[in-house]
């Protein structure tokens, strides 16, 4: 038999002006199982809470209903008060007789009756409530950062500086990401390498950071606070401890004509290479696909010349196991390339290049030492056309979004060009100029006014070659769609920023969701921009959507704070209002039949498989099991399960059923 206490609040006059609170308290007293009931002016005030606590003790209450304002307002208050009086907080419920009753109805009998109904529903519900304890999950205070671009670097340094361990996994031989390829950066035109390199070095030297380059995450198990990650360190064919980074091998390698990825094909590299001079770590790897030894079985020139005998041709990939409490995804983005623009002749005409290639041309350490020379003949282009929105905002190309960074870097490119080729003319074809950001609009203005860039509003329809010139045809929509034709020496396409190749696979490995464009999805577009739907996994930088450097860095610091907050306790406390799959004595074990139809509905991948084994270790059943660390308590699985094997605390089948019964059968 229950001993429930009902406390009806007047909320000053907010409730009592339209609801007869005394009557509600009186009627509630008549309900079966109600031991005590009263009404009071302000239940949430100190005296109100004291009264509640005393009543719990005096009447040995085993359930409490507070009829007052919205539980979204004061449920924590009253649950805490109950807990202080020795009653399990989850045995306290609230009836919302203010927002849902007194404030929205006139003063009459119906309103008071509704309040009585709402109290009765909660009295019946609370009888079915169970005492629950909050869930404690231990936290491993190591963060895994995947991707070593500027976002990953920022996140790793922030977390490491909070005193926590960080493991960084980077796919390429060096960290740095796209930013290391950039020449100068908007809106200040400071040299990209100059601001990035010190931070890359800091990563390598930080006592709290372990760096794995040329490595990829292969498997992720576990959940928030307790991830188990397998990392594959691809063989570099090198003993990194012996290598001093002298670079002799790279100069002697007979393979010299491999297109250089870092230069985006505008230069060459050998088979044993360091991607760029400031690389971190500054030690070479052998690209086995292009190495003569791996192709033909002989060569080994590098091994012969290496003064420290660091080359290891028989080195194998290594699998490293990592335990981490949180994961930051910072795998960045990619830009469209290749055959995406047959109409612009990219790939066909050497002098049609993309923005990143232009960055390399403009870079002092690039293939032309910073001079703008066109790839075909090394001439300095006198007329150059920049095409913004190449692929972006074009539903026909499947990219409906704005790539966001191109307007800015196109203005930057026009400027850099003009600074280097004083007598040249830069043209920009654009759809709109989107320059929202601190000092951004001013920056674009400068490109137009000071550097005399010719901005033409319209899309380019075709580009073709004629007499050594690139004919760019478009329309000027500000001049009544008048056709425009420019004989250019070189064309730069601001190709759309897209999700990384392999982002989808990584999302599946790590168990986070992604959007229609394969960018990783945030948990909430406004309020949880750096969280994913998987607890303990966060996002930093352009892996979420195209972002510029300031935004990437801000997001990275945001993600780092989330990680640091998570690591600030040894244990994670979570509300126990989560789903459970029932368990019974053998041989039944559970009413779950292991259909796993519930598995794919869970937004948090919280439903796991548990194998029930007999004494001989043979699997006799596979049952669903809810991971306490991951479940957020939405209950979507509960409504799906045909056999009602899953239920959810706080909104259990018994509870909601009872509520409906109590509401309709007075």
């Amino acid at each position: 038999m229950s001993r429930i206490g009902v406390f009806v609040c007047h909320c000053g006059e907010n409730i009592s002006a339209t609801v007869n609170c005394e009557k509600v308290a009186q009627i509630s007293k008549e309900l079966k199982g109600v031991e005590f009931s009263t009404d009071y002016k302000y239940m949430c005030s100190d005296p109100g809470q004291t009264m509640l606590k005393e009543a719990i003790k005096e009447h040995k209450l085993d359930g409490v209903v507070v009829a007052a304002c919205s539980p979204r307002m004061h449920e924590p208050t009253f649950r805490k008060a109950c807990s202080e009086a020795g009653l399990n907080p989850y045995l306290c419920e609230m009836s919302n007789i203010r927002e849902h009753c007194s404030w929205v109805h006139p003063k009459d009998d119906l309103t008071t009756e509704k309040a009585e109904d709402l109290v009765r529903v909660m009295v019946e519900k609370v009888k079915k409530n169970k005492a629950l304890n909050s869930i404690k999950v231990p936290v491993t205070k190591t963060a895994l950062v995947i991707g070593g671009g500027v976002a990953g670097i920022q996140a790793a340094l922030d977390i490491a500086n909070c005193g926590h361990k960080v493991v960084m996994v980077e796919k390429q031989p060096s960290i740095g990401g796209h930013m290391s390829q950039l020449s100068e950066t908007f809106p200040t035109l400071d040299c990209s390498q100059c601001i990035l390199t010190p931070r890359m070095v800091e990563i390598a030297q930080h006592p709290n950071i372990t760096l794995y380059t040329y490595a990829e995450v292969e498997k992720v198990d576990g959940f928030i606070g307790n991830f188990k990650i397998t990392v594959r360190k691809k063989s570099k064919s090198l003993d990194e401890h012996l290598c001093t980074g002298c670079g002799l091998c790279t100069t002697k390698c007979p393979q010299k004509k491999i297109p250089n990825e870092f230069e985006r094909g505008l230069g060459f590299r050998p088979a044993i290479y360091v991607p760029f001079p400031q690389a971190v770590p500054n030690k070479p790897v052998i690209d086995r696909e292009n190495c003569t030894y791996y192709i033909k079985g002989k060569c080994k020139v590098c091994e012969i010349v290496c003064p420290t005998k660091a080359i290891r041709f028989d080195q194998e990939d290594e699998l490293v196991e990592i335990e981490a409490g949180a994961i930051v995804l910072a795998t960045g983005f990619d830009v469209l390339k290749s055959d995406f623009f047959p109409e612009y002749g990219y790939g066909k005409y050497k002098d049609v290049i993309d923005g990143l290639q232009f960055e390399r041309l403009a870079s002092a350490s690039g293939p032309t030492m910073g001079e703008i020379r066109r790839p075909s003949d090394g001439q300095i282009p006198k007329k150059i056309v920049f095409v913004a929105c190449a692929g972006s905002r074009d539903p026909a190309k499947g990219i409906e979004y704005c790539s966001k960074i191109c307007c800015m870097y196109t203005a930057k490119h026009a400027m850099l060009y003009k600074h280097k080729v004083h007598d040249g003319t830069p043209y920009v074809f654009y759809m709109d100029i989107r320059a929202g950001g601190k000092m951004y609009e001013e920056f674009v203005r400068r490109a137009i006014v000071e550097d005399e860039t010719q901005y033409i509003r319209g899309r380019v329809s075709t580009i073709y070659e004629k007499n050594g010139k690139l004919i760019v045809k478009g329309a000027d929509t500000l001049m009544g769609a008048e056709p425009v034709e420019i004989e250019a020496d070189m064309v730069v396409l601001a190709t759309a920023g897209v999700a990384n190749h392999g982002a989808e696979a990584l999302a599946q490995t790590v168990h986070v969701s992604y959007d229609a464009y394969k960018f990783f999805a945030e948990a909430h577009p406004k309020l949880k921009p750096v969280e994913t739907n998987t607890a303990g996994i966060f996002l930093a930088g352009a892996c979420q959507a195209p972002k510029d450097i300031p935004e990437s860095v801000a997001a990275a610091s945001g993600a780092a704070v989330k990680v640091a907050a998570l690591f600030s306790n040894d244990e994670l406390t979570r509300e126990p209002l989560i789903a459970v799959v029932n368990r019974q004595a053998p041989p039944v074990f559970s009413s779950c039949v292991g259909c796993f139809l519930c598995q794919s509905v869970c937004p948090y991948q919280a439903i796991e498989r548990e194998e029930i084994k007999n004494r001989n270790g043979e699997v006799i059943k596979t049952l669903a099991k809810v991971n306490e660390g991951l479940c957020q308590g939405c209950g979507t699985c509960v409504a799906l399960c045909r056999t009602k094997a899953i239920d959810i605390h706080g909104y259990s089948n018994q509870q909601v059923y009872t509520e409906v019964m109590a509401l309709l059968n007075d």
Partner: protein
Amino acid sequence: MQDFEPKIVAFVCNWCTYAGADLTGTSRTKYAANVKIIRFPCTGRIDFMILMKAFENGADGIIVSGCHPNDCHYSTGNFHARRRWIVFRNLMNFTGIDTERILFSWVSAAEGFKWADVVNNTVAKIREMGPYENYNKIAVSTLLKEEVSNHE
């Protein structure tokens, strides 16, 4: 029929519609007292069986409401709910359950006024339709049978 007061149960999610109804309250927007809310964590939690139970226990109308698509607190619960509603509504229709008596809506935490409208319109509509006789009839004949079997 004059003094028929429809009984309407609203099944709503905690994050959008419940909060929206809170806002209706804070804005002191008035609406009919016939609708009573049962709170769920998410529309994804709302089992068709609980809707069934509401009708058979004398509800004249039902409101089911949650976050707009893409706004789900749990990101996808409402999408799953929507599929189930599509199917369940089909089945109700085929078995002759009056789908005019069950309203599905998206009401966000900011749509306090919309909530008042949803309630008022539903109450007005059900008031016009009258009590849910069909379901009530089987409920009554069931009670009689239960009594008979209890006497046996």
